[in-house]
């Protein structure tokens, strides 16, 4: 196979490299778990100052398991689809599991190749969740997760 002369030229993109697959667009146009929660263990908002994406997540734990989760967000398809998928993913998960979610989980769920530029969009939801969880462990004993209204 002949190597392209220019390192920036990878030729036409294959379908695999196309990031706007049907499932991404479905989650973007019809996101799951949107809105706020009246009762939550934490809520946390993060924004991506470069592109203006925002995600605010609400999570309610019961017996150290995620009972309810929702988010309010604005932004690009990647950031919003990732929030939609992540909130689906953490339902009924243990606090410890939620604490330990790695970025690969998100990238696998998105199922597309994410370049450096869009990585911040893809991981905004996880950053929001992680920082929210940090708030919990910072102020509460994990055996006694407080309830906020």
């Amino acid at each position, binding site marked *: 196979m002949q190597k392209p002369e220019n390192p920036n030229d990878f030729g036409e993109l294959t379908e695999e490299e196309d990031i706007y697959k049907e499932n991404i667009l479905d989650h973007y146009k019809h996101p799951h778990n949107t809105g706020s929660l009246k009762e939550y263990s934490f809520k946390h908002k993060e924004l991506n100052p470069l592109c203006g994406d*925002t995600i605010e997540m609400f999570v309610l734990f019961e017996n150290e398991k995620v009972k309810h989760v929702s988010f309010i967000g604005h932004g690009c398809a990647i950031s919003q689809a990732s929030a939609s998928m992540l909130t689906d993913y953490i339902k009924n998960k243990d606090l410890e599991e939620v604490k330990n979610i790695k970025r690969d989980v998100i990238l696998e769920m998105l199922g597309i190749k994410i370049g450096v530029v869009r990585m911040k969009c893809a991981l905004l939801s996880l950053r929001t969740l992680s920082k929210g969880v940090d708030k919990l462990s910072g102020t509460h004993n994990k055996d006694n997760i407080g309830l906020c209204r």
Partner: protein
Amino acid sequence: MHKTKIILDIDRIKKDFPIFSQKINGHSLVYLDSAATAQKPSLVIEETTRFYTEYNSNIHRGAHKLGELATIAYEEAHEKIAKFLGADIEEIIFTAGTTESLNLVAYSLVKTLKQGDKIVLTEMEHHSNIVPWQQLAKQYGVNIEYIKVKDFQLDIEHAKKIIDSKTKIVSVMHASNVLGTINPIKELAKITHDIGALFVVDAAHSAPNMKINVKDIDCDFLAFSGHKICGPTGIGVLYGKKHLLDKMSPFLYGGHMISEVTLKDTTFADVPSKFESGTSNIAGAIGLGYAIDYINKIGLENIHYYETELAKYAIETLKKIVGVKIYGPDENRTGVISFNISGIHAHDVATILDREGIAIRSGNHCAMPLMNALGINACNRASIYFYNTFDDIDNLVEAIKKAKKIFKVTNETSE
């Protein structure tokens, strides 16, 4: 193909820019992001390299041949910029860019203000013309007021109201990096000087495409960046009126900016050295000098005319696409065109366009207060420079239509 009077030989001009000889994602590069940074002609690349290969040396120091050559080239760069702006050579300070230039002015001026004094900025400013003033104002108990934006223009009546006897500094961008609006800076300079305040101009987005004469504008300070005018990154300019620069205290202390140092005290060098501490970005300054030569050869009047024609065509064709909203005036503008497409986030538009080899910018463009005033979080920005063509605009339009198709945005769903 297009019936506009074309005054520049774009095919020939494009050959001056090596970057256009490659393919991006299988396509010829359509570069519509020059407001972020302009591409570099061979002349600038070669002359910057020539400095490093033939006469690399520090300036104003060693009494050897290379030092002499480097010093002459650096001084010549000062001269070229001075001529370019209609200023005197001692009024030109090399900085790292517009941001450092504005910080220099802000740090040197704000500490001379009294509690309760006022600085006037505008809602459309780039963060670099807000944050330095804002943070220093907090430190010194100074107030800031912002001239409102109405219909993508500065509200001059509002400006007249808030520029009052308490106002000591007014700092305004010449051309908007988001709206493309060209602000009436001569008028604002007069309003400012009538009450005895100082007038600062952020020319980052006008210096690349409009003839600027600091004496004609009668501004006290003016800043621009080298990289937006085909020069290297990391080099910028601050113009300041000589008598003001003489009075101002330095911004950064260290080598080169001194006249005499004892263990107890230091006397500072004369301007511009007083403000150019440490080893300057010599290669950058020389490269910028050659960028100015290149721009002068093409002619700023030609650049401005051609860019305006392209912008007019772009706005007309973009407006025909259902669901496209343009943020900016139709006339009296530069080639910066910001827009949103109903149903597709700006970041997604930029990604899809990239796949077609089209480079635009998306996001808040370092102008979050303006985004708030416009009631949006982000937008797309296509910015035109003289190496762009009418075909580039056609490609942009086609790619936007493709983005609508991918996102299944039908005409009916648009606002």
